């Protein structure tokens, strides 16, 4: 097994593209190392991206925030401006694991691990985040919801890495929130989750909405019908019921040891409602 830690994304892409056998990207390693230890993956080449300068930065610009693919959850949680603009995304990422895991885990790793239950992903999808991809063929920008294609699978091509993730600039009177259901209080995997991002008009009416659900389908779902159910409302009870119903209708979960189909479906609606209310309040809406 070979280990490389290149200093540029281009170099990383080259190493990955020309590798023979199984080549993997290493960010925080909180998924990868666990899988290696259990024998689920046995890579021939590991490309550590943390020495690449661009993966370590959080850059604020008029277009929003560019968050390097090597930035840990703990660093994200300490970034005041980011927390203020995207509290839902930051909280979602900070839910990952424990203090120890937070010191290493990354949003990009969470995304590329492609678990339908990944905590930061519904929040990123609701936030309309974009992944900045570097590969042998150059750069491209992809909506985060387009990265995972199924459990453990991504649309990244051989040699491609995510260098950073861009969160858009925060719109006035907007707010986001993320909630997950776990049977315990921490150190658990989402049984179902919901991320909501709302923009209000000056009267407190929802103008734009993005609603994403986790762990109810092979990939995180962006539920447009759920957004439609609340646009033009002030999240009155009927709107919230319609939101929940739209979420339930969108669910295509599995029955497994973590939860039943009916449980996931019902709780998806509950969480979407609760997250919407928090997002509404964060956007300055009064109830």
């Amino acid at each position: 097994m070979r280990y490389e830690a290149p200093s540029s994304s281009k170099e990383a892409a080259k190493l990955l593209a020309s590798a023979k056998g199984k080549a993997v990207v290493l960010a925080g390693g909180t998924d990868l190392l666990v899988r290696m230890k259990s024998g689920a993956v046995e890579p021939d080449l590991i490309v550590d991206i943390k020495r690449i300068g661009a993966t370590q930065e959080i850059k604020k610009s008029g277009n929003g925030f560019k968050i390097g693919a090597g930035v840990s959850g703990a660093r994200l949680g300490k970034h005041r401006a980011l927390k203020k603009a995207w509290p839902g995304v930051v909280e979602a990422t900070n839910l990952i694991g424990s203090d120890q895991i937070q010191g290493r885990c990354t949003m990009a790793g969470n995304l590329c691990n492609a678990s339908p239950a990944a905590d930061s992903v519904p929040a990123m999808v609701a936030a309309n985040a974009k992944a900045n991809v570097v590969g042998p063929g150059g750069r491209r920008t992809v909506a985060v919801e387009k990265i995972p294609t199924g459990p453990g699978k991504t649309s990244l091509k051989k040699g491609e890495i995510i260098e950073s993730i861009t969160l858009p600039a925060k719109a006035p009177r907007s707010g986001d929130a993320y909630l997950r259901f776990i049977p315990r209080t921490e150190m658990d995997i989402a049984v179902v989750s919901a991320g909501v991002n709302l923009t209000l008009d000056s009267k407190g009416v929802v103008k734009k909405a993005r609603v994403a659900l986790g762990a109810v389908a092979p990939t995180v779902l962006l539920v447009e019908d759920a957004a439609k159910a609340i646009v033009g409302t002030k999240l009155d009870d009927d709107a919230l019921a319609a939101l929940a119903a739209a979420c339930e209708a969108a669910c295509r979960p599995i029955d497994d040891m973590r939860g039943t189909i009916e449980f996931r479906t019902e709780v998806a609606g509950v969480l979407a409602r609760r997250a919407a209310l928090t997002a509404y309040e964060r956007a300055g809406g009064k109830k």
Partner: protein
Amino acid sequence: MAEQSYTEQEFKVVGSRVRRPDGVDKVTGRARYGADAFAPGQLVGRILRSPHAHAKIKKIDISRAEKMKGVKAVITCDDLPDLTGGRGPNFDILVNCMARGTALYHGHAVAAVAAVDEPTARKALKAIKVEYKALPHVTDVDAAMAEDAPIVQPGVEHDGKPSNIVNVSQFGHGDVDAGFAEADVIIEKSYRTEQTHQGYIEPHACLASVGPDGDGELWVTTQGHFTFRNVCAQLLGMDIAKLKVTSSEIGGGFGGKTHVWMEPVALALSRKANRPVKLVMGRDEVFMGSGPTCSTSMDVKIGAKRDGTITAGQATLRYQDGPFPGPWGMLGAMTSWACYDLPNVQAVAYDVLVNRPKVAAYRAPSAPMAAFAVESTMDLVAAEIGMDPVDFRLQNVAKEGSKAAYGPTYGPIGIEATLRAVKNHPHMKAKLGKNQGRGMACGFWFNFGGQTCTDLNIGVDGTVNLTMGTVDVGGARASMSLIAAEELGIPYEKVKCNVGDTSSLGHNDTTEGSRGTFSSGMATIFAARAAIDVLKARAALMWEIDVDDIEWKDGAAHAKGIEHSNLAPLTLAEIAKKSPQTGGPIAGHNEVVADGAGVSFASHICDVEVDPETGKTKILRYTVVQDAGKAIHPDYVEGQFQGAAAQGIGWALNEEYVYGEDGRLQNPSFLDYRIPVCSDLPFIDTEILEIPNPNHPYGIRGVGETSIVPPLAAIAGAVSNAVGVRLDHTPMSPPRVLKAIREANGR
């Protein structure tokens, strides 16, 4: 034995909260657990396990693995020939540690390797080719009792037919039919509990070394190294005296480390490789290849008069034991009604074989499930007749002189006192908010004594080495040091207690049945008293007076009578200092079968809040009241109460073995087998009652197990009161609770 009986006394150090002797080592990482032993030339052992729930093993081809570079031994059951005569508990251990022709459950060991390093060992496992023929399997206890169920162990018969029912036990007295005929109210209900694991943080681990002369050593994390020695020696064909077993520090056992799982495999690998072999289970192996407790299915029926008098109680209990018979159903039946004084009572238990791991003891084994069913039904009866659940229990409570349903007539016992303490506890009167509920329940455990052997040696500086043979799983070294200090009359800090290896003491039974402090405490008292006899004899020599003129008090020999009033007391240290000249080392020894363990009772109170939209339960407040007999070290006693309650909470709310249709265990990891994390629990309040056990000099009863018995029922009561629906199936996981709410609302 007269000296064994309780005498009331003023304690000097017993009952104080002294600093634990193992604390510094444990927080600095110096403590050595099962996986912390190293030997020159040691190999890494690994076990190949069955992917099938039930399968014939047609062929195992180890030839490719054996030829691999770095592989030093590959074994199958052929390397562990049967020396047990093909039957009995040790035969079951042999079959369980390495499958013989049939894989009986998902995770059953079928072969093992020893190699120079971990990657080589893993590769070698992959190179072993096993040909299986899948057999029909059964993992559910009720399904296993059905007419046409797949048979787990050929040869087992019930009613003259092949069956999975291996044991039927029955306890009780009176006439239950007559009792039910007298009742104004009868409640009958069925319950289920899913299988749970002890969840100790330290996985099974050992270092085995067998030399070319056939003598061996085993370093192992265990609750009973003497038992491990006897079992392993028999299975390997060794002389007991030639296998030295050392118990490591133990990172939790709760019954799961009373049992031999993989140690014979490690010894057989070492014997074949002629090198030391270290074998450490992964967490998945701990779940699949060690011994969880039973899942159950139970029916309970209680009849009572309107005034609250129970006229009859009847329980039918079905416990699954995995593929080997155990005493588990029997223990469930024995404990089920133990809290109450009933005129007509019956408990019938079935032990049933299934294709799951071999069941082992788990803290008060079998009692929590039976208590869940009985105590839940007690609540229902109390509600039906409109009586407060505590008053209802008090009205029927067992007392001194009551005949227990499992046979004996009780001596002084604490159940009534715990109930009164619960009734008067401020927790019972605290206000509840929306979606909140309160429950309470009682629990019983026998406790156990057994064979014990202890040595006490006094150094020339007056410090004391106490060597005990019961593994310290819950603070025994601190308690034994306190007891030795109390008897000798010296400060606690002057005593250093160690757990001796199997070559240094006579046989000690395993630390189980809450026996450690009871039995080693007794042996320590007697060993100290024997040492005091020697100290007095030495003082007599030093003073040149008759030993009968000497008494021992406050850590010194005192000469009695006016004729000796010129003699200043000789302290233990002074006598010890002179010991080389007065006859050599001073020691006390004791071996005893500690009879008369005192039964123990607890009553718990629990408040919960349930999210009605998600079914998630939060434990808001929890109170444990338990009779300890005598709390030698109250911190540790409280720790046992809290730990037992915490495990009960996990069992009640989220822990369960989940099997697929294919009979495979789906969740052998701490991610999906959910024990509580710290933030899931409130601080658990405790109240220690001390009702002395008449059969122990200090009044000690066991304390470690009883408090895992009430939580399932106490929490079920609380959740049911919060949501308005009776929960009858543990764990009361959010999907189950939400479903119950939904069904109650007709949705």
